């Protein structure tokens, strides 16, 4: 970059650089003319003070003090943000909900298994494909959500959000010593009931679990051993939810019953895994077997092997999950007992005495 003969030309270069960074919508020429006038006044005053015209270094010092063109343009221009403070909390909430609680589970429980099936049991390829899809899915989802919120921000569609709230409609203060929420228990009963119906129908309609694969797969004999304990556990869960709903004042009950149910589930899972994998030398008890008509098909044998392996892995994962749940529930129960005995954990009042 050449040093200009006329140092004042530096000011024009500077203003040109500032103009580049200013948004076009702003009254650019107005802003630039005003800034230019200010800088020329500073130079004029400095010249009067020193008694000679400023050289390039002295002009440069004045411009340097003013700040880099990009920063000056940012200060002179309107304050810009993609999503403002009013919408930001909602944006963050939606982003978390979609990415963590919808997209990731969909990939783990639906797209992942589909990719495994497509890859014909090649776990490495399936995992790489799923991670790649997940990565691009996260980007697309985050980008779309950001774009939608940016549009709402620009169109001022949120302008009334801040006013449209009613103190009377705020949710009641949650008690510290929390009883199991009504909605949670009602959902448990609802899904528990349909789960029980499903379990009761299962011996008669294997298609409920095997789907279209029932043409070449059958439920393995191992399930006959564990069907009744599973059924009893489901009934116990339904009863637990019913009692929790009927006796909300029994704060101890859901904690104790959930822990007990989790321990029983753990024992059952342990038995199932051990039964499926007997000691070395003994026969392995598959969860699904091939129908007579499909016993000689190499493709169906491979599919049956993948399904059996998937069920075993799922049971192992469930075992691990229940172990963690037992640890957490035990900890929570101990905390509950401690609070009960010490009298702590009473709801905190917000009232000023």
């Amino acid at each position, binding site marked *: 970059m050449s040093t200009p003969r006329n140092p004042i030309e530096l000011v024009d270069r500077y203003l040109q650089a500032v103009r580049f960074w200013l948004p076009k919508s702003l009254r650019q020429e107005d802003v630039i003319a005003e800034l230019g*006038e*200010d800088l020329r006044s500073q130079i004029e005053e400095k010249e009067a003070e020193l008694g000679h015209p400023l050289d390039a270094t002295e002009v440069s010092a004045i411009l340097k003090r003013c700040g880099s063109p990009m*920063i000056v343009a940012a200060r002179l221009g309107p304050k810009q943000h993609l999503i403002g*403070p009013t919408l*930001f909390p909602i944006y963050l909430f939606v982003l978390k909900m979609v990415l963590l609680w919808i997209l990731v589970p969909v990939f783990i429980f639906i797209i992942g298994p589909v990719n495994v099936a497509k890859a014909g049991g090649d776990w490495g390829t399936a995992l790489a494909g799923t991670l790649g899809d997940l990565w691009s899915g996260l980007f697309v989802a985050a980008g779309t959500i950001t774009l939608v919120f940016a549009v709402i921000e620009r169109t001022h569609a949120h302008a009334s959000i801040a006013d449209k709230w009613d103190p009377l409609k705020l949710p009641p203060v949650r008690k510290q010593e929390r009883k199991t929420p009504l909605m949670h228990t009602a959902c448990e009963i609802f899904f528990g009931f349909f789960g029980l119906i499903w379990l009761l129908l299962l011996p008669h309609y294997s298609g409920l679990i095997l789907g279209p694969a029932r043409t070449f797969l059958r439920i393995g004999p191992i399930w006959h051993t564990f069907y009744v304990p599973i059924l009893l556990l489901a009934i116990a869960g339904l009863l637990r939810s019913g009692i929790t709903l009927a006796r909300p004042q029994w704060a101890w009950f859901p904690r104790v019953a959930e822990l007990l149910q989790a321990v029983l589930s753990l024992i059952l899972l342990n038995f199932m895994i051990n039964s499926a994998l007997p000691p070395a030398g003994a026969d392995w008890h598959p969860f699904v077997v091939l129908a007579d008509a499909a016993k000689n098909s190499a493709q169906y044998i491979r599919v049956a092997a993948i399904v059996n392996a998937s069920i075993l892995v799922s049971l192992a994962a469930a075992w691990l999950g229940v172990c963690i749940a037992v640890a957490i529930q035990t900890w929570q129960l101990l905390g509950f007992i401690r609070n009960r005995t010490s009298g702590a954990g009473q709801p905190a009042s917000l009232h000023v005495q």
Partner: protein
Amino acid sequence: MYHTVYVTSYMSTSTTTNAEIFENLKLELRRGCLTLAVLTQLRAERYGYTLRKALAEDGLEIDEGTLYPLLRRLESQGLLVSQWREEDKRNKRFYRLSPQGEQILNQLLDEWQRIHTSLSKILQGA
């Protein structure tokens, strides 16, 4: 409310030094005072540079990047009026308080007096 919490949380997790914290708080403290000072100074007509000089002479330095956006905002709110005019063979934009600006300034000065009195009491008690 949420925005404030967010900013605070961000600052506490970053490597913010005491000097930076002080600078940020000083900026917050100065922001309202600058508006008051600018409106007061513009009871008499001035252009940007002479306004900056007048403020600096009274001990309130303000850079170009802060003053000009502030002037534009106050003008868009109807508190100032401006006019481009030639002076010393150069075009300059002169600002002065509008009648509405005069009213608002008087209200702000009353408020400032109240805050000043309260703060003095608080500081004396501290």
